[in-house]
């Protein structure tokens, strides 16, 4: 009966904890399903801790049994079990949570783009984000021909994901080019990009980012099968199809220049619907006539912007007149080239490591929460073992004053106190 009870108590400890970690990490496994073992690092960590605990559980159990009848030795053995139940749950994390351990590692791994506080509760949302980074990367590169649809359909590319060597090579090579000929050219000549990334994209900073002369490394090449250019004017007839037909590149590996918009990765839309509406212009009749020359002029403006005298790389200015609106769109070229903005691209480049880091958070959370149950189960098992194997402990008794002092088998402390008291009593 006691054995069954002890087994049950063991099961509600670490085995249940490992199951809880696994259950709470399902979103992470789902999102990172093509990243082999990386999303399972947290579970592996919890499993290793559970194995260590199990070994301690067994060894202390055997020790207690071996020393049956020796109360002090059995007490020592069960105390080890209880202390280790704390050390292996909350104890470890109290240390790992110190600012210079996990929080610093996380900040270094994400180059300061993700903080510990942002992740320790919101890990599922982050996993979804990292999962979608890979999916979107694949979709963008299927669209521009970097991932051939003759080889696999888009669905198949999404399914094989990071396991595909082609996807890995494309991610690595193109990120290195974006990093070398994009990010580093911005950060090597001043603080401007860092300011822009911190909501300080002032006009002087924008001017610097657009006009500063930057040096690129001609030996680092970008892989691009075809150029995709956004349509200059997007109408209702275009729906979500906002790119022109791809134009195959003669040289698929080439040096690409990047703009600040590429680094940020998101288009800037200036909504002029209200202003245009206020002018009372007959847009319905004018636009069909104007759209032809306007498209051509916008195309010329876009080419002009790409001239080294101006931005030196493509920024696409276009008009979005869908749903009766009138928006000027400033689109980066990154999406058409199959890249996210710099931060997301940097994350994608280390997505396997980041999935590993994210997977640690559910383990951390449940080792903290379920740690109390583990400690409780350890204490209960300890009590059972003490009762089962401890025998009778030495007892103190009231004695007559003149009775001779017997200190046989006393602990050091008890002997010291008893002798001192007896000595004092004699002196009275």
């Amino acid at each position: 009966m006691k054995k069954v009870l002890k087994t049950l108590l063991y099961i509600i400890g670490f085995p249940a904890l490992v199951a809880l970690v696994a259950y709470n990490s399902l979103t992470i496994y789902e999102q990172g399903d093509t990243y082999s073992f990386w999303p399972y690092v947290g579970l592996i960590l919890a499993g290793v801790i559970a194995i260590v605990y199990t070994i301690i559980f067994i060894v202390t159990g055997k020790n207690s049994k071996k020393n049956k009848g020796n109360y002090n030795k059995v007490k020592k053995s069960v105390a080890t079990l209880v202390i280790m139940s704390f050390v292996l749950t909350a104890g470890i994390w109290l240390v790992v949570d110190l600012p210079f351990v996990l929080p610093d590692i996380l900040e270094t791994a994400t180059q300061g783009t993700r903080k510990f506080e942002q992740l320790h509760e919101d890990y599922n949302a982050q996993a979804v984000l990292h999962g979608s980074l890979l999916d979107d990367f694949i979709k963008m590169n299927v669209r521009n021909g970097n991932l051939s649809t003759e080889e696999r359909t888009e669905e198949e590319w999404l399914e094989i994901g990071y396991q595909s060597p082609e996807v890995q090579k494309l991610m690595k090579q193109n990120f290195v080019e974006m990093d070398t000929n994009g990010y580093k050219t911005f950060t090597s000549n001043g603080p401007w990009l860092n300011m822009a990334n911190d909501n300080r994209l002032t006009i002087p900073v924008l001017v610097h980012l657009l006009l500063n002369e930057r040096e690129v490394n001609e030996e680092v090449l970008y892989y691009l099968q075809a150029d995709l250019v956004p349509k200059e004017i997007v109408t209702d007839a275009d729906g979500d199809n906002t790119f022109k037909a791809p134009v195959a590149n003669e040289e698929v590996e080439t040096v690409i220049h990047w703009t600040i918009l590429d680094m940020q990765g998101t288009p800037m839309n200036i909504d002029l619907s209200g202003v245009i509406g206020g002018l009372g212009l007959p847009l319905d009749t004018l636009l069909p006539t104007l759209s032809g020359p306007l498209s051509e002029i916008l195309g010329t403006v876009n080419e002009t912007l790409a001239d080294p005298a101006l931005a030196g790389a493509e920024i696409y200015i276009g008009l979005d007149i869908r749903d009766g609106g009138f928006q000027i769109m400033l689109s980066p070229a990154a999406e058409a080239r199959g890249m996210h903005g710099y931060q997301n691209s940097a994350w994608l480049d280390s997505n396997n490591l980041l999935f590993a880091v994210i997977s640690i958070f559910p383990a951390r959370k449940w080792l903290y929460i379920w740690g109390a149950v583990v400690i409780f189960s350890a204490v209960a098992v300890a009590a059972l073992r003490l009762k089962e194997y401890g025998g009778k402990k030495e007892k103190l008794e009231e004695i007559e004053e003149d009775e001779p002092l017997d200190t046989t088998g006393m602990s050091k402390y008890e002997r010291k106190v008893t002798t001192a008291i007896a000595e004092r009593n004699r002196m009275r």
Partner: protein
Amino acid sequence: MDKVRRKINVLRVLQVVFYALGFPLFVHMVMLTAKPIQESYLASDLGAYMAIIIAAVMWVVVILAQLLFRAICRKNRMARAVWVALIATVITIAPVAYSDFMLKGEYEALVDKYVEEEGLKETDFYTYEKAITKYTEITEELNDDIDEYIEVFNLAPGALEGKNYGGNGDGSKATLNEEDQAYYSPNGMFSDGYLFSLKQAIAVQKAYYSNKLAYEAEGKDIDMALAEALLELETNPSSDWNKYKNGASESSFKKEGFTYITSSDEYELAYGEDGYAKKFYVTDDRLDAIASVIGGNLGACDAVGDLLNILTGTGLVKLPDGLNLDTLLTEDLTVDQLIETINALGLGKTLAGLIGTGADSITKDDLMGLLEGYSNYQSPSTYPIFYFLEDDALQEYAYANYYGTIHGGKVGAVLVGENVGLMNLDNMSGTKNPYTASGLIKTFKIWDAQTELINEFYPMFAVRAIALKMSASIVFCLLAAYWFTAKIDDQYAKLAVVRK
């Protein structure tokens, strides 16, 4: 036997509980009470924890006394307890007595100093009797005021240390000065990516507004005086500025102790014909190169003519007589021609209004003036012109003006003027400055005074407040702990150990 053991256990618990209710609780309570001081923007590293340090030292003194009397009164437990209680009484009453009888005079002296020397009024301060109870409220209100200030000027959240967003544009080193809480370039100015700390934002505004107000008090305009002084430096061939630009020998400078930062040709290397600084800002040549590309590309685009034909046909656009796009839109297009065309189209007045010149047309100087604010690049390795100003007040103002407007505009934290804070494409006009010049100067003086109070007086007030409430209970609890110790010993005296 079990009865005795149970008694011992109960007595032990009581012994620990009563000890914990004494000094440990006292230190904890001081820690809680002093939290607003710890969190104050104005507290120094030491001041933030001074209250806790004082409380901990009080506890340590009593512990030392306990050890001492344990050694002295080995056999007389009662005498030991009485002596320790006496020491504890003195120690806990000390902060109350010190605050009430000695600190009051110092507090009033400090208030007098700010009233007499800085022009503050007595009503800007609480009386000592009120301050001694309202110090946490005052500290919290100050933090709220400073939070609002940080938000208005868009400083870094928490703003204490400022921020450096990266290396200088020219690759020179940005050096942190921890005492100033600022990053400096080799020319002694803030580094390219330095976002003001609270300390430096205040210093810039003090320098800007105090000099401006001092000139105004004499009926003078400091901006005009500065413009004249700079013009003199620019136009006088033998001015230090021109000597600097020409790389004259250091001994020929009027400015005492002048030395070049790197070499006598440092200015030429930065701003000369192929100067490295030129790749960081818009020059006449770069503007003309841009105009040339625009002219060449648009000139080759037939759709421009088609579009204008449609627009002029509908009457929406009216082209001025004599405007020939074929001759204008070529690779030879210059900024001067563009400006002429803009004025000919009648758009000059509108643009001049937007720039703020109020003229009927715009000029290239207007355009360059506008661009200077946006694309100005002060090389971190050369001195600015105002480094050579001889008048100290004007020089201090010129630096503050540069930091508050140009540098602040760049890092998204304009510090002076009617519109301040972050100005970007989404919000070109920034935040309306809610502070007046004199109001801000007075606010800074109050913050200076409160900095002294928070670091030198309020920690003692926090200790006093808790000591006042707890001194009797601390002594009682300490004595109780001694009593329980004695009782435990009495119980042990009834026990011995036998093997069963």
